[in-house]
């Protein structure tokens, strides 16, 4: 059993935001569709000039305010992003390492994933720490899509918000990581991509929805079985906040009671790999009575991944 897991989570949500309904008027989008299907009222926006690494630093500052930990015990820094500083070289985690003034003997690397990135990232960092007998690591998510969104594109402009998270992974976890399941539907990889003409994000929403609706419910059930759980014995299902409709569709497919699979991103938008840690921070603080949580991410790739976290009895 891997002894590493989530000790604490810090987040950063910018104050600036785009009003989705005002934007929708410009894009000729029905307000009812925005409310019932997309579900976002506001899309958060980083400040001009802020980079991926800056959002990471802000999330780290929030983490530092929530828990005391010895920075010298940090052995690795991992950043999940597909929108790193500049053009991605040097890697974002090296930039974060420098901005945090961390000592030299630390592994830093990025994970190039979108909305499945947090689930993958948990597996990667816990395995890395265990393999190398390390003390702790910082798992960041920071994927400011505002850099690549065409605000005139009705398919993408009303969805994405900027935010970041910093999860302290250690051998003194509040939640241990269970076994994960992964899926890559690369046949549909073009459904979410950066268009080389104008470097903006293009998304074929229907294809993505179809992949998620057909893949994720089965994957969640597979993940539960792999971890010896049933839906009834799982306290909470936190899924990627792609839209209100996809969350409701998944909840319906799994026949979950109201509240067990919340949609809670109205005020921030789809923050890519940050949606899950944002929810974890709010719904499962270390002192809560929630013991078992299923996490599910899905998106770019197309890919999907699910895992379970269980409260550590220690």
């Amino acid at each position, binding site marked *: 059993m891997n002894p590493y897991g989530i000790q604490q989570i810090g987040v950063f949500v910018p104050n600036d935001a785009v009003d989705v309904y005002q934007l929708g008027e410009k894009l000729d989008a*029905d307000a009812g*569709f925005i409310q019932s*299907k997309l579900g976002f009222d506001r899309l958060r926006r980083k400040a001009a000039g802020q980079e991926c690494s800056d959002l990471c630093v802000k999330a780290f500052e929030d983490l530092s305010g929530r828990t005391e930990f010895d920075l010298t015990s940090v052995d690795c820094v991992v950043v999940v992003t597909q929108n790193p500083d500049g053009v991605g070289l040097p890697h974002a985690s090296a930039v974060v390492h420098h901005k945090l003034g961390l000592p030299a003997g630390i592994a830093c690397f990025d994970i190039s994933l979108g909305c499945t990135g947090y689930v993958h990232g948990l597996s990667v960092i816990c395995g890395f720490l265990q393999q190398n007998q390390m003390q702790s690591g910082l798992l960041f998510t920071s994927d400011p899509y505002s850099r690549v969104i065409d605000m005139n594109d009705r398919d993408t402009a009303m969805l994405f918000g900027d935010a970041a998270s910093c999860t302290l992974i250690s051998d003194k976890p509040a939640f241990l990581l269970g076994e994960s399941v992964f899926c890559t539907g690369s046949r549909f990889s073009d459904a979410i991509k950066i268009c080389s003409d104008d470097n903006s994000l293009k998304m074929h*929403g*229907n*294809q993505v*929805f*179809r992949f998620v*609706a*057909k893949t994720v419910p089965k994957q969640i059930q597979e993940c539960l079985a792999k971890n010896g759980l049933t839906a009834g014995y799982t306290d909470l299902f936190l899924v990627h906040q792609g839209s209100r*409709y996809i969350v409701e*569709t998944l909840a319906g497919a799994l026949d979950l009671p109201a509240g067990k699979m919340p949609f809670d991103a109205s005020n921030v938008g789809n923050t890519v790999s940050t949606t899950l840690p944002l929810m974890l921070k709010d719904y499962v603080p270390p002192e809560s009575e929630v013991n078992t949580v299923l996490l599910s991410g899905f998106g770019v790739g197309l890919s999907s991944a699910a895992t379970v976290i269980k409260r550590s009895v220690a």
Partner: protein
Amino acid sequence: MSTKEEIREAVINGLEKVTSKEDVTLNDDDQFDDYGLDSLDRMSLMIEVEKLLEADFDQLDPGQLTSINAYIETVERL
């Protein structure tokens, strides 16, 4: 291969689920647009019909499936 009646029933059941309406009545020629379906609803309907008929429409654009007749023609071609 599903019969026309099975396809018809699957589409009606799918529509009831997607629209949360009971006792949907629809002629084979009636257009789904009359039910105010948006693109996501049409995709959900297609996924539901696939499940009920154990069919796979693969990457077919649900916008092409605008009526019960369209579903019948499509399923018969599978």
